């Protein structure tokens, strides 16, 4: 993986407004070859707007967006990208092979049809009309269309929604193969485990700004919280009052709590209840890190809104 070279796409100080709403607010991003870049954030964070600007579908109100050094609205730049959007109703009566040939015709040096079909796992579907496919199969076809042009940068918006576990695994394998060839990938996903498993770099957005950018480990490290679970006679209400406990709740017969000082909490729990069992301590995953980061981002804005 080589991320030291010059970026293949970048946004510098980009602002995009829709009426009074600022969807993207001073965003800086760089995308590199051979790297899977995951863009995460709650709904309305500005992910789709960011992608739209990189694809040339929307123009920034301020700042610069570059795709291979060009304006993304230039065809020359877009001939180097592949796109899989979250919702695109492809012509239902066309067959999969016809859709592939059509999309490949937009590119200067596309993959041959067999190679595309094998990579995306649609080789057995080529003669089928698009409408006759299951939701998961349709997603695979859309993935095939995204990679058929031999793109250097691939945009995947929620690619595995509607896929079963096996199809999802296959898409991950294909993605890793493409990245090994040097393709850059921009991935937006609601499945944090997907970002965790695939992404080299994760960017969390909220309210049009970048909250955090770095590797998955960097991101997790920003959240010092650990999860503790056990079966105990102690109740959440009681434990929540301890100063080192961030949050506690009862989950059936189990107690669940999060803390940034797991060792001392565990010691205190064991002292308080000698019968305590099934003790688990886990580092926060990307999901907790994500929740923590985005909650922190929401809170001060609520306060300023009230102040104003």
């Amino acid at each position, binding site marked *: 993986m080589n991320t030291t070279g010059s970026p293949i796409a970048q946004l510098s100080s980009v602002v995009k407004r829709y009426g009074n709403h600022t969807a993207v607010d001073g965003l800086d991003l760089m995308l590199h070859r051979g790297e899977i870049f995951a863009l995460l954030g709650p709904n309305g964070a500005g992910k789709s707007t960011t992608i739209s600007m990189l*694809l*040339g*579908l*929307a123009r920034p109100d301020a700042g610069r967006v570059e795709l291979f050094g060009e304006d993304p609205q230039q*065809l*020359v730049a*877009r*001939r*180097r*990208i592949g*796109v899989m*959007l*979250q*919702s*695109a*109703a*492809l*012509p*239902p*009566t*066309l067959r999969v092979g*016809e*859709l592939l*040939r*059509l*999309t490949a*015709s*937009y*590119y*200067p*040096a596309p993959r041959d049809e067999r190679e595309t079909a094998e990579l995306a796992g649609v080789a057995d579907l080529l003669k089928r*009309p698009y409408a006759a496919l299951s939701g998961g199969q349709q997603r695979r076809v859309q993935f095939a269309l995204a990679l058929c*042009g031999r793109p250097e940068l691939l*945009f995947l918006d929620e690619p595995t929604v509607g896929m079963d576990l096996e199809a999802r695994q296959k898409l991950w394998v294909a993605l890793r193969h493409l990245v090994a060839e040097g393709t850059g990938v921009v991935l937006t996903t609601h499945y944090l485990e997907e970002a965790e498993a695939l992404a080299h770099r994760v960017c969390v957005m909220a309210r049009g700004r970048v909250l955090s950018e770095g590797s998955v480990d960097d991101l997790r490290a920003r959240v010092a919280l650990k999860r503790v679970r056990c079966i105990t006679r102690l109740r959440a209400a009681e434990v929540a009052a301890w100063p080192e406990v961030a949050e506690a709740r009862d989950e059936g017969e189990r107690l669940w709590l999060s803390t940034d000082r797991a060792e001392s909490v565990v010691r205190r729990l064991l002292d308080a209840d000698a019968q305590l069992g099934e003790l688990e301590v886990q580092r926060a995953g990307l999901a907790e890190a994500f929740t923590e980061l985005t909650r922190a981002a929401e809170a001060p804005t609520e306060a300023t809104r009230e102040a104003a």
Partner: protein
Amino acid sequence: MNAVSSAVMSAASASREMSLRRVLGAYLQEARAECLRYLRNPGFMIPTLILPTAFYLMFGILIGHANGPDAPRYLLAAYGTFGVMSPGLFGFGVALSMERDNGLLTLKRALPMPPGAYLLGKVVMSIFAAAVVSCILVLLATLVAHVQLSPAQMAGLFATNLFGALPFCAMGLMLGMLIKGTGGPGIVNLIYLPMAFMSGLWFPLSLMPKAVQDIALLLPPYHLNQVALTVVGLGHDAVWPHVAALAAFSAVFLAIAARRLRRHG
């Protein structure tokens, strides 16, 4: 080292240059895909091919002679006009309103589709459908209804129908830009059928009230029908004012569509 990497870069950028042949190929593929998808779509084929054919068989041939000896000839022009209206209105207008809503147009705009391939593909499809409906009607007229047409009349009618599809493509483009989503088919039908009726495609305008005759002057199918009637030997007017009217309608529709496109993207 720098020399090597820049050589690699320029080789890579050379391979990204799209040859003219491949660009033309993209236009062709787009047009081919448009034609195929509609040929396989009964929701499109029924109003476009079946309705004009069935109407012609019924009113032009089966009970046509009851309306006078010229009825099959008169209705060949009228149903030809009726037939070439729908590819533009439905294939263009309804499809565009749907595709602006369902993400297909967004995807195509994000992909490196050559500019204009989308619209040109739809125009080719509309003309192709107009050619098919025109052939069917001329065959029925000459072989079944025994309408005598000279080769010049046949060619003229064919050309009238193919070019006649274009103003309706422009109208469809405008409607597709104004309407968005699943309301498209309903609204276009509400325009299509009354417009055909008021233009005198089903009943001669001379049988209708004066008010309707006046309104007809503002409707593109009326003008196309007048051209077609003259071509098959039943018209009395000069052709060129009607052709000019059709060109003017097209220009207005295109201008409205373009304005809408600039505002809303």
